[in-house]
C-alpha cells in the first residue's frame, strides 16, 4: 500500500472538567488510504465523533488535543496555525454532519452556501461558480438544479438537505471526506439513496472517506476497513471480510450477538452486562474487562497491546483462545418460528380509525384543509401477541398509537377494548378503561418527570387509577415492579437523572405495567438506545409477555426488531396500512412494492445476502396533500395507469396476509 492519505497516530483528546482534563479519546491510531472507506464503529459516548472533530480541529470550547499526531498527506495538521487550518478544512478534508436540518444555514440560499466554499477554496466567482454549482448539484442527484440554487433549506426535504450538504462538502474537492453518522437522521429508503451516492462519488473522485456510524448494516454496505471503538480506545481494526466473518474482540462479538434478528426469534438476545465506564474513572487495565465474558486476570491489570490475528486484522485483547461460535449465530434467515395457533378473540380492535388535523389559515383561522395523519387504519390484537406497526417517519404510526389511547381524539372510526367502544366514551368511564391500555414512549429521557422520584413516577398511575390503595401496599407494589424489570428496590428513592438510558426505559416500562394493562403500546421504545441496551429491553419485553400475557402494539421502523419480536406486521404508508399479515408472510414474501423496497433498503449487518436495493425515487409526500389514487404511485417502480386515480382495494393472500395494491386486484380479476 502506498502512503496513506490520513494517518492518525496515538491521538489523545480530552474535555476540560474543572481542573482536570477527562480523556474522551485515548491513544487512537489508524490510517485511511485514498479511495478507501474506513468505518469507525461504536456506541454512543465512545469518542468517535470527538475523534472526527479532533481531526478537523473543530472540538468544542472545552475540548483539548492532549497529544498524538494527525497527518494529512504527510503534513502534520495539528501543528498548523489556525489561519492555515482554514485552507485545509473544506479544501483538503470536508465533513458531513448527522443532522441535515441544522447543518445548513436557514437564512442563506443553497447557492450562497455552496458559493461560499467555491470562493474560498477554488477562487470561483460569478458565472463560472454558477456553472460549477449546477454541476455539483447534478452530481449529488438533485433534479432541476437551476431552481434549487435559489431556494432556502426549509424548501428542501431531509434527504435533499443532506445531498446539498454533500455538495457543499464536495465543492472544495477534498481528498478526504469525514461523514459523521450521515444517514442516522434519515429514513431507510432515503438512507439507501444517500449511501449509494456516497459510494458513487467516492469511486469517481478517489476520495478517502472516514465514516462514523453505530450501524453494523451501514458498515457492511460501505466500509473497506472497520475500526471498533470502545470507551475512547480503538479495540479492533479489521478488513471488512474479516470483520464480518471472524470478529476477534469480545466487544465486537457482543455487538453482533445483541442484534435482534429472525434467527434469534424465541431465543434470548445476548446482552453486555454493566455499563461503559465513565470518563472520570477508567479502569487501568482493559476497559472492557468488567463486562467481558472472556476476561482474564491479566486484563484487569494491564492495558492490552495490539495483537495481529490476520492480514491487516488487529485486536486489542489478551484472550486468544476459542470463542463460542453460536454467538455470531446463523445469519441466514432459515425459518421463521412457526406461528402459534390463532388464539382467543382479539383484546383490541381498531376499525377505520381516522385522525385528521385541520390546517388553519388567515386572520379568522378558517380551516382550509386537513392533514390526514391517519386515514382509515384497521387492526386487531389478540392477548399475548405482538403486532408491529412499521413505517417511515411521518407515516402516522405514532398518531395511531396515541389515538388508540385516546390521547389524541380520533376524527372517526372505532377503537374497541374487550368489546367496549373507546371513541367518544365519557371521560369518567374512559378512566376505568385506561387500566387495560398503556403506553411506553420513545425517548426515555423525555418520558420521566425529572423532578419526581422513581417511586413516585411508578406509583402515579396506581394512585390515579386507584389500583393499590394504601401507602404501604403501594410501596411494596413499587418494589415488586422494580424487581420485575430488573432494577433494585432502592431505585424508588432516586431521581431519573441518576439512571442510564436503558434503566430509564425499564422504569418507564415498570410505570406502564403498574396498572396491569392487557395491551401495551410501545412507541419505538428502543430507537434512542444503543444496540447492547436495546437487546436488554427487548429481552425484558419478551419475558414480560411470556409471564404476564400482555399484548404489544409495537411501533417501530427497525426491521431487526420486527423480525425478532413480532407475530404480525402492519406496514403503513402515509396514514394507511398497505400490507398486513403474519411476520412470516410479510417478511418472507412481501407483496406490496413499498414493503419490498423498504425491506431491501435495510442495510444487513453481514457480508452475504446484500440483495439489490429497490431504489425508490424521492421521499414520502406530505400527508396534507397526498397524491391522488394510490398514495405510493409517484414512487412506485410498478406504477400503472389505474394507480394514479383509484385507491386500491385490500385483497387477501395466503392465510392472513392482506395487501392494498392494484397489482393484486388485477390478478384476482383474471
Amino acid at each position, binding site marked *: 500500500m502506498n502512503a496513506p492519505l490520513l494517518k492518525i497516530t496515538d491521538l489523545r483528546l480530552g474535555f476540560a472538567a474543572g481542573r482536570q482534563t477527562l480523556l474522551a479519546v485515548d491513544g487512537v491510531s489508524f490510517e485511511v488510504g485514498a479511495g478507501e472507506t474506513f468505518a469507525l464503529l461504536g456506541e454512543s459516548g465512545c469518542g468517535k465523533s470527538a475523534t472526527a472533530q479532533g481531526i478537523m480541529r473543530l472540538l468544542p470550547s472545552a475540548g483539548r488535543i492532549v497529544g498524538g499526531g494527525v497527518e494529512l498527506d504527510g503534513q502534520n495538521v495539528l501543528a498548523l496555525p489556525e489561519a492555515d487550518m482554514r485552507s485545509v478544512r473544506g479544501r483538503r478534508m470536508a465533513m458531513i454532519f448527522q443532522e441535515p436540518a441544522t447543518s445548513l444555514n436557514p437564512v442563506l440560499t443553497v447557492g450562497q452556501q455552496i458559493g461560499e466554499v467555491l470562493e474560498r477554496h477554488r477562487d470561483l466567482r460569478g458565472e463560472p461558480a454558477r456553472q460549477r454549482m449546477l454541476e455539483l448539484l447534478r452530481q449529488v442527484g438533485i433534479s432541476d438544479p437551476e431552481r434549487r440554487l435559489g431556494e432556502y433549506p426549509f424548501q428542501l426535504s431531509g434527504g435533499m438537505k443532506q445531498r446539498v450538504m454533500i455538495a457543499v462538502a464536495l465543492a472544495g474537492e477534498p481528498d478526504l471526506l469525514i461523514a459523521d453518522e450521515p444517514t442516522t437522521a434519515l429514513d431507510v429508503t432515503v438512507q439507501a439513496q444517500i449511501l449509494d451516492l456516497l459510494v458513487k462519488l467516492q469511486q469517481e473522485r478517489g476520495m478517502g472517506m472516514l465514516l462514523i456510524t453505530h450501524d453494523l448494516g451501514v458498515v457492511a454496505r460501505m466500509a473497506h476497513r472497520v475500526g471498533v471503538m470502545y470507551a475512547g480506545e480503538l479495540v479492533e481494526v479489521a478488513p471488512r471480510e474479516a470483520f464480518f466473518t471472524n470478529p476477534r474482540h469480545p466487544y465486537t462479538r457482543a455487538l453482533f450477538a445483541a442484534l435482534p434478528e429472525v434467527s434469534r426469534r424465541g431465543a434470548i438476545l445476548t446482552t453486555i452486562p454493566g455499563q461503559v465506564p465513565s470518563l472520570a474513572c477508567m479502569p487501568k487495565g482493559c476497559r472492557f474487562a468488567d463486562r467481558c465474558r472472556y476476561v482474564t486476570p491479566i486484563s484487569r491489570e494491564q492495558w492490552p497491546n495490539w495483537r495481529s490475528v490476520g492480514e491487516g486484522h488487529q485486536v486489542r485483547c489478551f484472550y486468544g483462545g476459542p470463542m463460542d461460535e453460536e454467538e455470531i449465530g446463523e445469519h441466514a434467515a432459515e425459518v421463521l418460528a412457526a406461528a402459534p395457533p390463532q388464539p382467543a378473540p382479539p383484546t383490541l380492535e381498531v376499525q377505520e380509525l381516522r385522525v385528521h388535523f385541520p390546517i388553519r389559515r388567515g386572520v379568522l383561522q378558517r380551516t382550509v384543509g386537513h392533514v390526514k395523519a391517519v386515514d382509515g387504519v384497521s387492526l386487531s390484537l389478540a392477548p399475548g401477541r405482538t403486532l408491529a406497526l412499521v413505517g417511515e417517519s411521518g407515516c402516522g404510526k405514532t398518531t395511531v398509537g396515541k389515538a388508540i389511547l385516546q390521547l389524541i381524539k380520533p376524527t372517526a372510526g372505532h377503537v374497541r377494548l374487550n368489546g367496549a367502544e373507546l371513541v367518544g366514551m365519557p371521560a369518567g368511564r374512559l378512566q376505568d378503561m385506561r387500566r387495560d391500555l398503556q403506553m411506553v414512549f420513545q425517548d426515555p429521557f423525555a418520558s420521566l418527570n425529572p423532578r419526581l422520584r422513581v417511586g413516585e413516577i411508578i406509583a402515579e398511575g396506581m394512585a*390515579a387509577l386507584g389500583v393499590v390503595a394504601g401507602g404501604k401496599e403501594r410501596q411494596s407494589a413499587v418494589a415488586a415492579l422494580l424487581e420485575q424489570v430488573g432494577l433494585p428496590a432502592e431505585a424508588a428513592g432516586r431521581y431519573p437523572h441518576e439512571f442510564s438510558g436503558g434503566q430509564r426505559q425499564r422504569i418507564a416500562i415498570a410505570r406502564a405495567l403498574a396498572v396491569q394493562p392487557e395491551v401495551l403500546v410501545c412507541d419505538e421504545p428502543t430507537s434512542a438506545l444503543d444496540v447492547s441496551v436495546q437487546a436488554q429491553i427487548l429481552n425484558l419485553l419478551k419475558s414480560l409477555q411470556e409471564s404476564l400475557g400482555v399484548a404489544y402494539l409495537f411501533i417501530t421502523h427497525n426491521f431487526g426488531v420486527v423480525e425478532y419480536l413480532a407475530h404480525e406486521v402492519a406496514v403503513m404508508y402515509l396514514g394507511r396500512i398497505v400490507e398486513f399479515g403474519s411476520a412470516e408472510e410479510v417478511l418472507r414474501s412481501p407483496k406490496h412494492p413499498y414493503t419490498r423496497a423498504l425491506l431491501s433498503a435495510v442495510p444487513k449487518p453481514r457480508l452475504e445476502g446484500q440483495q439489490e436495493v429497490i431504489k425508490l425515487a424521492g421521499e414520502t409526500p406530505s400527508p396534507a396533500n397526498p397524491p391522488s389514487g394510490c398514495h405510493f404511485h409517484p414512487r412506485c417502480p410498478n406504477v400503472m395507469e389505474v394507480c394514479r386515480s383509484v385507491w386500491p382495494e385490500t385483497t387477501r393472500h395466503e392465510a392472513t396476509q392482506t395487501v392494498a395494491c392494484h397489482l393484486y386486484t388485477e390478478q384476482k380479476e383474471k
Partner: protein
Amino acid sequence: MPFQIVTLWSDGLIWLLVVAGIGFGFLIARSAPLLAAWRRVGKSRVGMASATVLVVFAIIGLLDSLHYRLKLDGGEGRPPTYAIEVLSVLDAVATPLRTHNEKTYSAPFATRLYAKETVELPGGGQTREYPRLKYGGAHLGNDEDRLPADVAGKAALGLGLAAVLWGVVAALVTASVARREKVGRGEAWRRIWRGETPFAWSALLVTSGLLLALLLPLVALAGYYHVFGTDKVGQDVLYQVMKSVRTGLIIGLVTTLVMLPLAVLLGIIAGYFRGWADDVIQYVYTVLNSIPGVLLIAAAVLMMQVVIDTNPQWFATAAERADLRLLALCFILGITSWTGLCRLLRGETLKLRELEYIQAAKAFGVSSWRIIVRHILPNLMHIVIISLVMDFSGLVLAEAVLSYVGIGVDPTMISFGTMINNARMELGREPVVWWSLAAAFVVMFVLVLAANLFADVVRDAFDPRAV
C-alpha cells in the same frame, strides 16, 4: 406599655414574605434538585458576595418595617394618647440622625451651612457669614480646625472596631468549617481561601470585611457629623438613604407578590388548556402590553390619590396614607408587569405539555390540575425564580423613575425617586448641591448591582441546560 405597635399593610406583607421565604427554604431542603441548584449558588463567589450585600439591605429594610407610636404623657387617669408620628425600629436606632436637623443645606462633613446668611452679632450689628451648624461637628466647639484630625481619629476607631469584629466573624466561620469538615482550624482556614469548601466562605468573608470597614467608620462618624450632608430642610441625607431602602425593597418584593399568582396561573392555563382560554389570556396580555405602562400607572395613581384625598377619615396617621399609596403603586406595577413572565410560562408550558411524561400521565387518566401541580409547575420553577430575581432590580429602578415623574410614592415618603426628584432642582444652582443625588445614586447602584449579580448566578445555577 410606653408605645403602641402599628402594623402597616406593607409591614404585614413584608413579614409575610419573610415567613414564606422560610417556608420555601424548608420545601427546598426537601427537594433534591432545588437544593442542588441552591448549593451551586452557594458555591459561587459572586453569588455569595452579592448575597452578603443584599442581606445588609434586607436587615435595614426589615428594621424599618417594625413600626410603633410613642405614648404621650397624658397625665394620670386620662385615656392614653399616642404620638401622631409613626416610628420604626430603624428610626429608634438612628435617632440622632433623625433628630439632628439643620436649617438647610450643608455639605458632607461640614461644620457650617452651605450658604451665607445675615447673622446678628451679639454686640449689635450684622454680618454675612456661613453660620455654624447646630449639630454637625458641634462637639468641636470653636476649634473647627481640628476637623480633619477628629474625622480621621473617629474613622480609625471605626476601622479598628471593624477589624476586631471581622476577626470574630472569621474565627467563627473557621471554627464551623473545621467542625463540619473535621479538620484542624489551620487546615480549615487554608481550605476557605483556596475555595475548597462547598460554600464560598472566602467571598463572604471578603465582602463582610469590606462592608464592616466601610460601615463601622460611618457609624462612628454619623453621630457627630452629617456624613452625606443635609438636604433643603436640613434633614440628614444618610438617614434618608436608609429610609429609602425599605421603599425600594417593598416595591421590588410586594410587586412580585402581586404579579406572581397572575403570571403563573394564567400562563399555565393558557399553555396547558389551549383553546379559548389561551385566546382570551393572550388577548388580555397583548392589549395590556400595547398600552404605554407609564400612562396606565399615571392614570391609576392619580385616581388613587383622589380616593385617598376624599376619604381622610380612613387614615389615623400620615404614614398609613403614604403606605396605602405605596401599596397601590405596587399593585399597579404588578398588574402591568405580569405579562412578560406570563408569556414565558405559557411558551414553556406549551413545550412541556407535549413531553412524553405528561402524555404518560394523561394515559393514566391523571386529572389536569394534578398534572399541572405535579408535573408542570415544578418544571417551571426555575423560570419563575430566575425572572423574580431579575425583575427585582428593574422594579427598584422603575420606582425611582416614577417618583421622579411625580406619579410614584407619596411625597412624604422617603424613597430613591423622591430624593432624586428633590435634588434635581439643586443641580442647576451654583455652587452645586451634589451630595443628595450622589448618595441616592450610589446606594441604589449598589443595591441594583448586587441584585443583578445575584440574579445572574441564580440563573446560571437553575438553568437546566447549563447542567
